[in-house]
């Protein structure tokens, strides 16, 4: 039975403004945001990363750090949430309005059983006996389709990604709140699991008549569930700082694309396995990550490496950039085998092979300023004076489309996409011959992803850097790559140029139609 959204406003937000800085010139993170949600309604808030969606949601329940300045009003059943004291807020949080955090992995206490975590919420808000609370928690687990007898006693690390999402949902719905704020409820889930969670939310919403404030960067998510959607643009909310993402192209010396067929780097029958060792037993387990891999990257080309997770893509990337020792095989850089080299010789070559990691947030020291982070490789290699390095850093920031004026800001203050740009700038600092992007675009919203893809393509044209772009999304990378290598179970199963695939798509379809990933890629090239 569908509950029609009533006309009465449940939550009325007007002129919500959040800033971290009293300087009026710095634009607030959330700027005069107004919306209302009626009972039982699903309102989608959509916007790109860094647009202040999460900040706005946390501000409603006063869950932001003390440094945040929040103004405006948020009337929940005629009471202003922003004017409540801690005790009043505590009665609202979890009971009237509950929140589902972006990362369920982080939102669950690692040392507490799932059942107990739901019971804790019930304990805070109801007068139930412990027996009743337990039954209630079991019922909640069942309603999110988690078997209570198995999951009540499970710890978070024993749950899969989708199960954690469900557990967090059960926790949020435990006290039957009137409103649930769901911050990216499907982040990090793939197709089937995402649909599962969205169906679940849809079902629960109709069953309990709960209103949802659904925050997502993904238009598909909001459009599927939401009765109405508002977009947070740069006018209402702005990024952590308003960085320029345009290309100040005058800084970049144009270089003709190099079109020689000679491979810059080539690997032959590369093997690598991981084994865990005990002190007494020689070998406990052995996992084959790379199984006689052959790959060659022509100089100046952009090669995409795609494949399912766990197929050895990252291992190959780390072996190519000499971050990991291989068991056997050969890696040639300009016809010179790198594997016989001494540690010192390898060190001299490392600047030529640069690696952009998967998680830029983890790879940038939050205590360094952006400028220091970018010029750090130059410091390590003892290149230039402090002043030269500084100028170089600003130039590099320009090159990757960041405002060089932000060089003094701490790395922490940049949004996800901007951090990735910083990581790229840092990798470019030593003028590498090869850049390896290890899933560098995952976890970003589609607009940011697209901008970064453009940046990567521009780097190829303007600097002539050879690039290996690793991704699990063939569709995305095929748009810019010269050739695509597919990796499965530690081997490169096929490696063909995008032009060739486009020239004869039928042949490819016939040969690889069973593989949904390749199929997807072909559909794309065909339409092009």
């Amino acid at each position, binding site marked *: 039975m569908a509950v029609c959204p009533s006309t009465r406003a449940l939550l009325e937000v007007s002129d919500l403004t959040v800033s971290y800085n009293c300087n009026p010139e710095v634009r607030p993170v959330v700027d005069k945001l107004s919306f209302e949600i009626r009972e039982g309604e699903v309102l989608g808030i959509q916007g790109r990363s860094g647009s202040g969606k999460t900040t706005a949601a946390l501000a409603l329940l006063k869950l932001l750090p003390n440094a945040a300045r929040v103004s405006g009003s948020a009337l929940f059943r005629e009471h202003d949430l922003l004017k409540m004291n801690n005790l009043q807020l505590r009665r609202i949080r*979890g009971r009237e309005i509950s929140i589902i955090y972006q990362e369920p992995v982080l*939102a669950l206490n690692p040392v507490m059983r799932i059942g107990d975590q739901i019971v804790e919420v019930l304990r805070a808000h109801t007068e139930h006996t412990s027996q009743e609370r337990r039954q209630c928690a079991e019922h909640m687990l069942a309603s999110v389709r988690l078997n209570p007898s198995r999951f009540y006693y499970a710890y978070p690390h024993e749950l899969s990604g989708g199960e954690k999402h469900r557990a967090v949902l059960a926790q949020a719905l435990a006290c039957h709140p009137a409103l649930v704020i769901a911050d990216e409820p499907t982040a990090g889930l793939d197709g089937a699991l995402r649909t599962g969670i969205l169906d679940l939310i849809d079902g629960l919403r109709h069953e309990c008549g709960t209103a949802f404030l659904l925050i997502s960067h993904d238009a598909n998510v909001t459009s599927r569930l939401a009765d109405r959607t508002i977009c947070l643009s740069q006018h209402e909310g702005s990024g952590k700082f308003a960085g320029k993402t345009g290309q100040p192209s005058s800084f970049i010396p144009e270089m003709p694309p190099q079109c020689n067929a000679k491979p810059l780097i080539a690997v032959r029958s590369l093997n690598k396995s991981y084994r865990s060792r005990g002190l007494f037993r020689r070998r406990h387990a052995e996992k084959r990550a790379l199984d006689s891999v052959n790959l060659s990257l022509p100089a100046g080309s952009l090669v995409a490496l795609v494949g399912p997770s766990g197929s050895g893509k990252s291992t190959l990337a780390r072996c190519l950039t000499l971050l990991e020792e291989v068991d056997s095989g050969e890696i040639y850089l300009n016809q010179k085998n790198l594997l016989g080299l001494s540690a010192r010789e390898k060190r001299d070559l490392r600047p030529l092979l640069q690696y952009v990691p998967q998680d830029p947030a983890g790879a940038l020291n939050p205590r360094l300023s952006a400028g220091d982070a970018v010029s750090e490789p130059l410091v390590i290699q003892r290149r230039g004076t402090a002043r030269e390095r500084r100028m170089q850093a600003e130039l590099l920031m320009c090159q990757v489309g960041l405002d060089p004026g932000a060089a003094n800001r701490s790395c922490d203050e940049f949004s996800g996409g901007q951090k990735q740009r910083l990581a790229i700038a840092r990798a470019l600092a030593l003028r590498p011959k090869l850049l390896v992007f290890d899933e560098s675009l995952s976890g970003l919203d589609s607009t940011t992803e697209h901008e970064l893809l453009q940046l990567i393509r521009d780097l190829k044209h303007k600097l002539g850097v050879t690039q290996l772009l690793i991704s699990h999304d063939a569709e995305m990378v095929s748009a810019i790559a010269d050739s695509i290598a597919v990796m499965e179970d530690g081997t490169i199963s096929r490696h063909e140029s995008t032009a060739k695939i486009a020239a004869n798509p039928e042949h490819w379809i016939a040969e690889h139609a069973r593989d949904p990933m390749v199929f997807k890629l072909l559909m794309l090239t065909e339409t092009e």
Partner: protein
Amino acid sequence: MKAARYFEQRLVHSVLLLIVTSMAIFGTSQLAPGSFVDEMRLNPQISPQTMQALRMQFGVDQPLPTRYFRWLRSAAMGDFGYSLAYNLPVAKLLWSRLRNTLLLGTTAMLVAWTAALLLGSWSTLRSGKLADRTVSAISAFLLSTPELALALLAILLAARFRILPAGGMTSINTAKNSWAAAADVSRHLILPMSVLALTAFPVLFRHVRAAMLEVWNSSFVHAARGHGISDARLLVRHAVPAALSPMISLFGFSVAALVSGSFLVEVVTAWPGIGPLFLEAIYARDLHLVVAVVMLFTAFLILANLTADLLLYAADPRVRSEC
């Protein structure tokens, strides 16, 4: 099952480690010149013939491996060698002293841990505020004050104001009944115990505060707060269990310090524990006693780490599933 095998393995490692340690101590003791008998040369009343006879009797003239295996046999029998200076089996000598050291160490650790846990949690709740900064500043001051200076200051104060006995473990006119005797020992205990607790406190406090603060600012505590759980409940039920792991590792070290940590304080305050015994043994070149004390330190360190591992296994479900 796997866990049982793991701990079994650890136990075997520990015994091996103890044997290697004893060899190392025996070996390094060789590097120091002189032996127990050589000290007697200073006494003109003892003739060189007597000294030679004593050398033969004590076996000091035997080669190192022979001496080591003799000691090993004695250790296996539970004597841990023979103290030449005290003319007693080492074990007998050690046990009575160990009791005193453990009394001092255990009370000091209890006091220090209680203070560190309470103040550490309190500081976490008040992080960045005046209270937190004050306690942190005091702990920094204590951390940088040498143990010896603290002990001397305490003795000075005790002697000046005559509120506490300044040293020793019992008064000269020992009390008649056991209650009075216990009260007398407690009065003597206060001073060395306070010094020891004050030196241990800042390290423990800083670790507890860091661990608690990390958990307190973690996403899951924020999430739990978003579910309307009160701060008191958050601290006790959510944050403390999650912050236990680093504290347990630290607890292991502090158990190890029960015997070896009070060395200096015991010597300065004349507490009849292992510390003064060890020092005298070194001066007298009483080799077996020195080896036994170092072995005791090692044994405690190993035992403490084993205990910490067991506790960690019990406290953290993630460790359990990894084992």
